[in-house]
């Protein structure tokens, strides 16, 4: 059975990322003849000898005209073993915003490094973002290896640099592959021009890498989206008294009969049934959308979280968090915002900005405000409790958005706790972040 893998690509300006993505699509035969014909026509018009594969991915007119990529674009390709959803994140404009967006859903980040330039400031920052977002796997494609004469030493040097950085950032799984996106070496097929590299091609790696963590690694959490209560609208008599709580399982596994607690109220009950339109299930696991029936008639509504009774988060109104600031507006202590956590949106006030992350050193420096593309630590006070957990413990219930209550814009991507610190120094949680 085919499974899905979500990946995000990141890189710096002119490192050939669009070409690499175009090559993956082209060599995996995911480019269709009319798309290729269009690219070949435009390439010819521009006096190019070969089809410019970057044109496959540059979707907007301004991008084609300026030869740059503006926004995160999503691509789809498949092999016989796997289907891939690729978030293609541009490197130069608002790189933090784009990379954070792409990495938030990624099982794998594919990071490009130009073999001629080696590790750049941008590379360091992308690795820091991957660690911060707790992306399970990172593949560094050392591109333009043809332009350094397929030199084994260049690959070894860059690999050593990357491994050093990865260790310092607490990234558990980082691999390097020497590729030429332009010529196709080691992208889909293994190249005979890199005899010193006996590892898999990039696509082979993507096919083999385990997808995200298994559901059973985290406790059961189901944020309630809706109460399903058809009453008189039910066509079938048996469903007139139906009452179920619809949601997508955020993490974990649930079985009929499991003791659960409804948060933030703290009331306990057991799972009476797990329903889908296809019939009842005896167990269900993340990320399945289901409808739960509970044994007791409790007051449960959208925004509540149903959690495993013996392993439930403690709802809180005080949240210390790391936020990636995505807006032109400045975040200051005292700012009033909305916080969206799972299916609950509450008012929040920024008590304090306690630091800003220097991505080059992966260390926090003192800060009083945060601006566009800053990543900083804040203390928030909420108008109502949320069932938040540390992002490192459970990304789905540790993530939140900050939203501008006036214009509705998304201000920040938030993660409860200090995920980068905790990745770098496992087990040593800074006391200032204990709530």
């Amino acid at each position, binding site marked *: 059975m085919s499974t899905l893998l979500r990946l995000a690509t990141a890189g710096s300006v002119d490192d050939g990322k669009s070409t690499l993505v175009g090559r993956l699509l082209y060599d995996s035969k995911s480019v269709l003849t009319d798309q290729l014909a269009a690219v070949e026509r435009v390439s010819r018009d521009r006096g190019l000898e070969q089809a410019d594969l970057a044109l496959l991915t540059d979707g907007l007119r301004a991008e084609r005209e300026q030869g740059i990529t503006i926004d995160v674009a999503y691509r789809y390709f498949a092999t016989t073993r796997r289907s891939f959803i690729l978030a293609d994140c541009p490197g130069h404009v608002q790189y933090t915003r784009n990379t954070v967006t792409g990495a938030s859903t990624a099982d794998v980040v594919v990071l490009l490094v130009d073999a001629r330039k080696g590790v750049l400031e941008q590379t360091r920052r992308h690795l820091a973002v991957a660690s911060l977002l707790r992306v399970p796997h990172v593949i560094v494609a050392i591109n333009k290896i043809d332009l350094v004469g397929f030199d084994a030493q260049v690959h070894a040097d860059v690999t050593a640099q990357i491994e050093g950085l990865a260790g310092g950032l607490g990234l558990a799984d980082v691999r390097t592959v020497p590729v030429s996106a332009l010529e196709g070496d080691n992208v889909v097929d293994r190249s005979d021009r890199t005899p010193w590299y006996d590892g898999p091609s990039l696509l082979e790696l993507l096919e083999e890498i385990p997808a995200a963590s298994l559901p059973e690694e985290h406790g059961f959490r189901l944020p309630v989206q809706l109460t399903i209560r058809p009453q008189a609208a039910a066509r079938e008599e048996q469903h007139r008294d139906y009452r179920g709580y619809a949601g997508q399982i955020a993490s974990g596994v649930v079985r009929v009969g499991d003791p659960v607690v409804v948060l933030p109220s703290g009331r306990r009950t057991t799972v009476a049934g797990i329903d*889908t339109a296809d019939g009842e299930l005896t167990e269900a696991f993340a990320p399945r959308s289901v409808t739960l029936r509970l044994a007791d008639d409790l007051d449960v509504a959208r925004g509540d979280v149903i959690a495993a009774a013996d392993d439930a988060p403690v709802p809180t109104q005080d949240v210390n968090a790391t936020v990636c600031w995505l807006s032109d507006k400045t975040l200051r202590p005292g700012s009033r915002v909305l916080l969206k956590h799972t299916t609950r949106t509450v008012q929040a006030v920024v008590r304090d900005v306690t630091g800003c992350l220097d991505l080059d050193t992966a260390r926090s420096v003192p800060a009083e405000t945060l601006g566009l593309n800053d990543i900083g630590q804040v203390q928030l006070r909420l108008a109502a409790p949320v069932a938040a957990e540390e992002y490192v413990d459970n990304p789905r219930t540790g993530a939140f958005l900050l939203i501008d209550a006036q214009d509705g814009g*998304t201000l920040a991507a938030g993660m409860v706790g200090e995920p980068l610190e905790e990745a770098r120094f496992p087990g040593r949680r800074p006391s200032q972040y204990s709530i």
Partner: protein
Amino acid sequence: MTASDPTTATTRGTTVSVTDTSETDTSETVEPIAVDSSAAPNQAEAGHTTEGAGLRRLTQLQALESEAIHIIREVVGEFERPVLLFSGGKDSMVMLHLAVKAFWPAPVPFPVLHVDTGHNFPEVIDFRDRTVERLGLRLVVASVQDYIDDGRLQDRADGTRNVLQTIPLLDAITGGRFDAVFGGGRRDEEKARAKERVYSLRDEFGQWDPRNQRPELWNLYNGRHRPGEHVRVFPLSNWTELDVWQYIQSEGIELPTLYYAHERQVFHRDGMWVAVGPVSQPREGEEVLTRTVRYRTVGDMSCTGAVESDATGVEHIVAEVAATRLTERGATRADDRASEAAMEDRKKEGYF
């Protein structure tokens, strides 16, 4: 419910339930709807976990289905007046099927909206009406023909009406005070769509601003908007054409018959087979032939092309799509091929 105040929709949404929505909105947006529960097919293999394999992993189709259902439920939880764009075509049938599953055993809590070009395949309109009847849905029709009849729109020289759909669509959204509009668009369809969000904010003119989109993180969707603005929602964003067909097969979703191979009188124009019909007559030199064809999309009959095919059943189409080397729009939509930026321009103006 009074005129929706969308800026408060998200916070108020924390207490919305399906029942609440239908109770309060019955007179205007939601007819009392009863879903024939047989419409939610009992697909044993789709419903089971992969316990047998020892690994708890959803299959690709299960993962896509759960993601789409989550999105559909979020919209009903947070918006006042959603509506589903429904043409009777395969993507809108998949959308409707997912909506039925999302709220089972309650009825689908929103109406459906068809932007009718007047250049329809008769069998598609029949199918649309039967489906709406079977599921007890309320159908809103925005008619391009009405706009042409009273002079608000004029037919174009090339005869296609796909591009004329934008104004009737926007008027229907405004007139129905719809704040969320579900579409079946997929990011794999076209390069400009690849950059569209699941929640795509539109201004009061329905315009899409591709350079100023909200970042979309994790599975947290931000649907807040100001009065007059609305959000287009694309729950099938991450599906491919092959996913759609495999899902139609595994769920047993019924489609209009023209998706399957049939004999039809056609003529060759702009590299496509065009059906002979009231709005698509052969010009001089265009020879009418009988061919075994099928359609990959349904749209304006005058500019939607057929492909030669012997695929009489869904299993044949799954095999054909898996092997095909032409995107569905490239094969069969003359209007999308006009310029490299054709879709981007139409989307900016408020097209689907």
